[in-house]
C-alpha cells in the first residue's frame, strides 16, 4: 500500500512549497485537535489512532526508503516534514521504532528481520524502546553488563537496563548485551531484539523530574530470546549502535525544540504585555540570533546529507548547541513568567504555556543521547585532534 502511495506521490519531484502545502492541508484536516501541543509526551493509547492514520497515509517514516514503506525523503524534505508537524503542534509519536530501530535494521538487519519487523512498526503493532543504559553504564556505555549467554538454540539474558524511555508504552526493546566477557569492552557487545512480554522481563516505571513516568527500569531474569533476534554479527553491536547514535544526534540537533521554545517565550511575553520592553527585546533578539545561527549550521549538515555525504563526529556540535540554546530560551521564559514560574500546571490564561514545566523538560536534553560533556570530549579528540 505504501508502495502505491510512493507511485502516486513522488515527493522528491515536488517543489518544496507544494510538498509543504500537501502536508499542511492533510495535517490540518486530520490531526486530532485535543492532541495539539500536549503538556507531556503522549502515551501509547493516546497516540495510537493518530499513529495508525499516519501509517495508512504512508507518512510514518519520512526517512525510510520507499521499498520499506517509508517516504524516501531527502534530508531537505525531511526537514520540511518536521517543520510542518511542529508548526501544527503535533505530538511526538512513540517513534523509537521509526527513528532508531528502523534505520538500523535497514542498514544492518537480515532480509528476514527487515521483512518481519519493519511492516510491524509501520502497522503500529510493535512499539520499541531503547535499552542501552544501565545503572553503572551511562556515559561509559561500553562497560554495560547485562549479559546474553549462548544456550545453543536461544540466548539467555540476565541483567538490568535503566532510563528506558517509554518502556511502559512499548512491547519490544532493542538492547545492547554483553556476549563476550573476555574481549575488550566494546568488542564483546551484541544487538538484541527482545519482546517485553517474555517471561522474566519486568518493567518498573521511574517518576521523572517533570513528575511523569516517562522512563523505566527494565529487569531481565533468565529471559529466553530466540537466536534469530540478534542483529548483525555477534559482538558487532557496538559499532552498529554507534552508527545509529550519529543519526540520533542529527535528530537531537534539529532546531525544533528551540524553535518551539522561542515561540512559547514570545507568547508568554505577549501575555505579560512586555514584548515591547527594551530589556526583554534585547534578550529575545540575542536568543533569536543564536537560533538563526543554529539553523544555518543545521542546514550545512542537512546539505551534506543531501549530497550523500556521511556525517562525521562533528555532528555533535549540533546536539550541544541545540540543547543549550533550548535551555537558555526556557530560562528567559522563566524570568518573563515572573511569579507564574513557580506554578506546577499550565497557566489558566493559555494552557500551552507552562514555563517551569518546559524549563524542567529542557534539562535532560543535555544529558540524554550522550551528555554534552561527552560530546565535547568527542569533538575535542576526534575533530580538533587534541591529545586524549
Amino acid at each position, binding site marked *: 500500500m505504501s508502495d502505491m502511495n510512493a507511485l502516486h506521490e513522488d515527493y522528491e519531484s515536488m517543489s518544496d512549497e507544494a510538498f509543504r502545502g500537501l502536508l499542511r492541508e492533510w495535517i490540518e484536516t486530520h490531526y486530532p485537535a485535543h492532541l495539539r501541543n500536549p503538556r507531556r509526551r503522549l502515551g501509547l493509547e493516546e497516540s495510537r489512532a493518530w499513529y495508525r492514520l499516519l501509517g495508512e497515509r504512508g507518512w510514518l517514516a519520512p526517512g525510510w526508503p520507499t521499498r520499506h514503506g517509508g517516504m524516501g525523503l531527502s534530508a531537505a524534505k525531511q526537514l520540511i516534514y518536521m517543520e510542518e508537524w511542529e508548526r501544527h503542534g503535533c505530538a511526538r509519536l512513540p517513534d523509537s521504532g521509526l527513528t532508531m530501530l528502523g534505520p538500523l535494521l535497514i542498514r544492518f538487519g537480515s532480509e528476514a528481520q527487515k521483512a518481519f519487523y519493519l511492516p510491524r512498526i509501520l502497522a503500529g503493532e510493535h512499539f520499541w524502546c531503547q535499552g542501552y543504559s544501565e545503572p553503572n553504564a551511562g556515559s561509559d556505555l561500553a562497560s554495560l553488563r547485562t549479559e546474553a549467554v549462548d544456550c545453543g538454540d536461544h540466548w539467555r539474558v540476565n541483567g538490568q537496563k535503566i532510563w528506558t524511555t517509554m518502556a511502559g508504552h512499548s512491547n519490544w526493546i532493542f538492547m545492547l548485551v554483553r556476549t563476550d566477557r573476555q574481549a575488550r569492552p566494546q568488542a564483546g557487545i551484541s544487538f538484541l531484539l527482545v519482546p517485553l512480554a517474555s517471561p522474566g522481563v519486568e518493567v518498573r516505571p521511574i517518576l521523572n523530574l517533570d513528575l511523569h513516568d516517562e522512563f523505566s527500569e527494565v529487569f531481565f531474569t533468565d529471559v529466553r530470546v530466540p537466536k534469530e533476534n540478534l542483529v548483525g554479527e555477534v559482538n558487532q553491536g557496538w559499532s552498529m549502535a554507534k552508527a545509529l547514535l550519529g543519526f540520533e544526534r542529527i535528530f537531537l540537533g534539529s532546531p525544533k525544540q528551540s524553535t518551539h521554545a522561542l515561540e512559547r517565550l514570545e507568547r508568554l511575553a505577549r501575555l505579560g504585555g512586555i514584548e515591547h520592553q527594551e530589556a526583554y527585546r534585547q534578550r529575545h533578539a540575542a536568543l533569536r540570533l543564536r537560533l538563526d545561527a543554529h539553523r544555518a549550521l543545521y542546514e550545512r549538515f542537512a546539505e551534506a546529507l543531501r549530497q550523500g555525504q556521511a556525517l562525521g563526529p562533528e555532528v555533535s556540535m549540533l546536539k550541544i548547541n541545540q540543547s543549550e540554546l533550548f535551555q537558555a530560551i526556557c530560562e528567559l521564559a522563566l524570568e518573563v513568567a515572573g511569579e507564574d514560574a513557580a*506554578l506546577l500546571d499550565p497557566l489558566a490564561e493559555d494552557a500551552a504555556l507552562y514555563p517551569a514545566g518546559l524549563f524542567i523538560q529542557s534539562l535532560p536534553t543535555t544529558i540524554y543521547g550522550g551528555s554534552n560533556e561527552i560530546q565535547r570530549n568527542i569533538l575535542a579528540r576526534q575533530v580538533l585532534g587534541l591529545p586524549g
Partner: protein
Amino acid sequence: MNEPMHDVDLAERRERVTMLRDSAAALVPADGDLRRVRAWRFAGNGLDAQAWALVCEMGWPGLRLAEEQGGSGLGLCEYVALLEELGKGLAPEPLNEVACLVSLLPAEWREPVLRGERLVLPGHGAGLVADHQGRLLGQAKVSLGKAAHGWLLMNEDSAWLVDAQGLEGQALATQDGGHVLALALNGVPAQRLASSPEQLRRVRDEAALGVAAYLLGCMQGAFARTLDYLKVRKQFGREIGSFQALQHRMVDLHIQIELSRALVEETAACLDRSVAPGEAQRRIYATRVQAGDAALRVCREAIQLHGAIGYTDEADIGLFLRRVLVAASAWGTQGGYRQGYARLIAEEAFNG
C-alpha cells in the same frame, strides 16, 4: 559615616549568629535528610504544623521585631544567617513571610502570631483598592494562603489585614509541592493598617534580602550534594569528579556561591549600620539578583552533573531546583529586581 562596630559587639554578634545557625538544626537535619520536606509536598494545607510550632517556640518570627513589641530585636546579620541555614535544608516554613510582616500587625494579631496560635501570610496585588466602606476589592496572591488565618494584603503603598475565615480562593499548585492562593476580592471586610509607604517598602526590601539568604542556602545544599556525588559516582573506571571538565564547572559554581554570600553578608551588615534608603535598596536588589541567578544556575547544573538520576523525582537534588523556582518568585521576581537595579544605578548616575 558608618562607624565600625566595637570589638565586643562584634564578638557577641558572631556568637549569636553561630548559635542561630546551630539552632536551625531543629528544623533542618544536619545530615541533609529531606524526608520531612518530601512528606510536606502536595499534601495538607501547606503548613507542617509541628514544624511551625517549633519555629514559634524558638522565637524566630519575632527575630527582627523590636523587644518592646515582643520580639528579640536582632539585626539582619543574624536574620540572614538563620534563613541561609533553613535554605540549605529546604525548610518550607513561611518564616521570611511572617518575620517580615509581623511588625505591621496590630497587637491583637501580632501576639497570637508570635505564639504560633494564628498565622498571617502576606499577599501581593497590584490593583487592590478599598471602597468607601473600607472593603477590599481586587486580586491578590498569597503563597501557602490556605494555611493562614489572616492575609496581609499589600499594594505599593497600603496594607490591609483580611480575616481569612469564610473566604476562599483558588489554590494553584507550585513546583515545590506547596501552593499559591489566588484571591478574587469583591468587597471583603478589611482592616487598613497604619503603615507608611516607606515602612512597606522597608518590609519588602528586607524580605527580598531574606529571600536572597534563603536562596544562598539552597545553592549550598545543592552544591554540597553534587560535590559528594562527584566523589562516589564512577564512570570509565574513575570518579567522575576527577574529570577536569567537571572540576572546572564545580569551581565556577563555587565562585557563584561565594559571590552571593559576599553580597548577602555585606548587605545585611550595611543595613544593620543603617545606610541611606536609596543605597540600601540598591544593595538589596543587587544581592537578590545575584542570589536568584546563582541559585538557578547551581541547581540546574547540579542536575546535569548527576546525569539521569538527577532527572528523577526520587533523587533529592531535584527538590532544590523545584524549591528555588518557588522561592525566587516570592516578594518580587527576578526580572523585577533586575530592572529595579538598573533603574537605581541610572538614578544614582543622574543625581551625581
